[in-house]
């Protein structure tokens, strides 16, 4: 009889162990399962988006805020009753619209001159890397590789990363070698700090011979 009860206990424990094993394999104890996809989603490139949005909004805010303040300052000096009228007036006022237009024109001018400058600097960067680049012989057509450069304020190339390989190591090497050869961009000290942080701190260079 004793042997039998031992047998029963043993088989009971065995059942427990096996059942828990099977449950474990079926992810029964895994409560964090739902968190995982969320985690993997947030690792996305979204961070870059956010940064960008803030950056593009900043100049707008700076330009608008003082104007609103001014109008309010004016209205506060007047009577409270006139305030609403004033606001209506100002809202439909031609001068205000003109101001707005002016600001926009101003911004456009700034943007276009900025764009011009970006173009100029980009061309200088391209020219420097191009003159340092030695395209390897006997590589197939259609190879393209991307490098990401981090450049400090003085124009020195701090790091070079291959972010997209062409699949041909000789081609990738030649691109990296070209950038190493350039070492630093001597014209970087002429770039304004805004332009530098927005555009030229990190640049991606595509090597695409055609």
């Amino acid at each position, binding site marked *: 009889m004793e042997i039998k009860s031992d047998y029963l206990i043993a088989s009971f424990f065995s059942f427990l162990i096996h059942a828990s094993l099977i449950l474990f394999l079926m992810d029964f104890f895994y409560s964090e399962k739902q968190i995982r996809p969320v985690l993997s989603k947030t690792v996305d490139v979204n961070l870059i988006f956010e940064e960008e949005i803030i950056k593009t909004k900043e100049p707008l805010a700076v330009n608008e805020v003082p104007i609103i303040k001014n109008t309010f300052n004016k209205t506060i000096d007047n009577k409270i009753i006139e305030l609403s009228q004033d606001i209506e007036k100002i809202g439909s006022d031609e001068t205000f619209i003109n101001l707005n237009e002016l600001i926009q024109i101003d911004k456009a001018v700034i943007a276009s001159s900025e764009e011009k400058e970006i*173009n100029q600097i980009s061309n200088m960067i391209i020219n420097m890397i191009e003159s340092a680049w*030695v395209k390897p012989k006997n590589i197939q057509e259609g190879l393209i590789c991307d490098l990401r450069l981090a450049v400090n304020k003085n124009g020195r190339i701090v790091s070079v990363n291959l972010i997209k390989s062409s699949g041909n190591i000789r081609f990738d090497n030649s691109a990296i070698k070209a950038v190493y050869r350039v070492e630093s961009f001597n014209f970087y000290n002429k770039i304004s700090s805004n332009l530098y942080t927005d555009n*030229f701190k990190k640049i*991606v260079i595509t090597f695409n011979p055609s």
Partner: protein
Amino acid sequence: MKKILIIFLVPQLIFAELVLEITQGSDDPFVIALLDFDGQDEITNQINTIVNNDLNRTGEFKIIKKDKLLSSPKSEEEINFNDFKLLNIDYIVIGSLESENEFNLSASYQIFSVLSKKKIRTSKVLGIPNKIKQLAHYISDGIYEEITGLQGVASTKILYVSELKENNESLYQLIVADADGVNEQILLKSFEPIISPAWSPDSKEVAYVSFETGIAKVYIQNIANGDRRVAIQNSKQISSPAWSPNGNFLSLTMYQDGNAEIYILNLKNNNLTRLTNHYSIDTESSWSPDGSSIMFTSGRSGSPQLYEINLRKFNSKPQRITFEGNYNAKGSYLKNGDGIIFVHRSSDDFKIALKYFNENFIRPLTESKLDESPSISPNGNVIIYAVTENGENLLSGLTLSGARFRLPAKKGEVREPAWSGFLR
């Protein structure tokens, strides 16, 4: 000189980074200062010479001679990077021979990047005194690998057939040598022809066709111990055995139907399967690196052209892959499967040519008159071939990066070189 396109200039785009595109460039090598190895002169001299030759042969380097250097440091502390920067040197190699007793040698070397002013590699190679050549080849491969990112081939081997004419008889020899052509070992001697040597994928065995018994026999021979076995034999001619990448099959050209056809021999059970069936000649098969297709030379269009047959597709028909000129033969695949190397005739010259599958033109690589039997190095960057000059056969090499070299001249004629895989 084309203008460059700039893409992604507007900062408001999703990626904040500026992307610039480069479209031009010319050709030039890595410039390295190869300082003499420190240690016993008789040994270090050998090492210096071999490493220098090995690196030169790759075509990827320009080695600055010792007398042109501003300083010749012997250790890391003595390096003044500006001395090398002034000469536009990219890398410095310093080495020394360390334990120098009777039975053991150990060489260590360090590679420094002049641009980043940093040590990028320290390596130690162990060897025995009568294998100084091997030791030096290992060093060359290490340097090559560190700087180019490609695995070096100085320590690999080549296989070829030599024919010596004595009196009225020809002596055929199957020879295996180091990649630089020295250190030859004879695998087989025969007064009957030996043709089509080929390496097994693991480079431990070679297959060849020998007529020593009077009929064509394909032998598979172990390099290390010389043991060999007959894979297949036939009273009619057999030629160009080629190993499948997994080592289980041998593709062959057999003439038992009256004209040359490609067959596949299963080395496990000796089953023979016929692959091609055409009244014209089909020969010189070679396997794609993934083993999915076989390329061969066929005369079915009236002139020798290269065809490819897909082995993974049921009932697949050979597809013609060369259309340039009226002679394209003896093709072999590049190691990454991007293209092929073959013999191409333009006017009356036979040249080695390269064709990438995504391009619709060929790139002739040689300028000599009679080039044949190209074989590609395991890193895919060097091609060795037989060339006939002034009635003499010799072995020549070229790298895709543009260097050319010639292996030491041999007595008699040499032909059908075959490059081994990596042996390390």
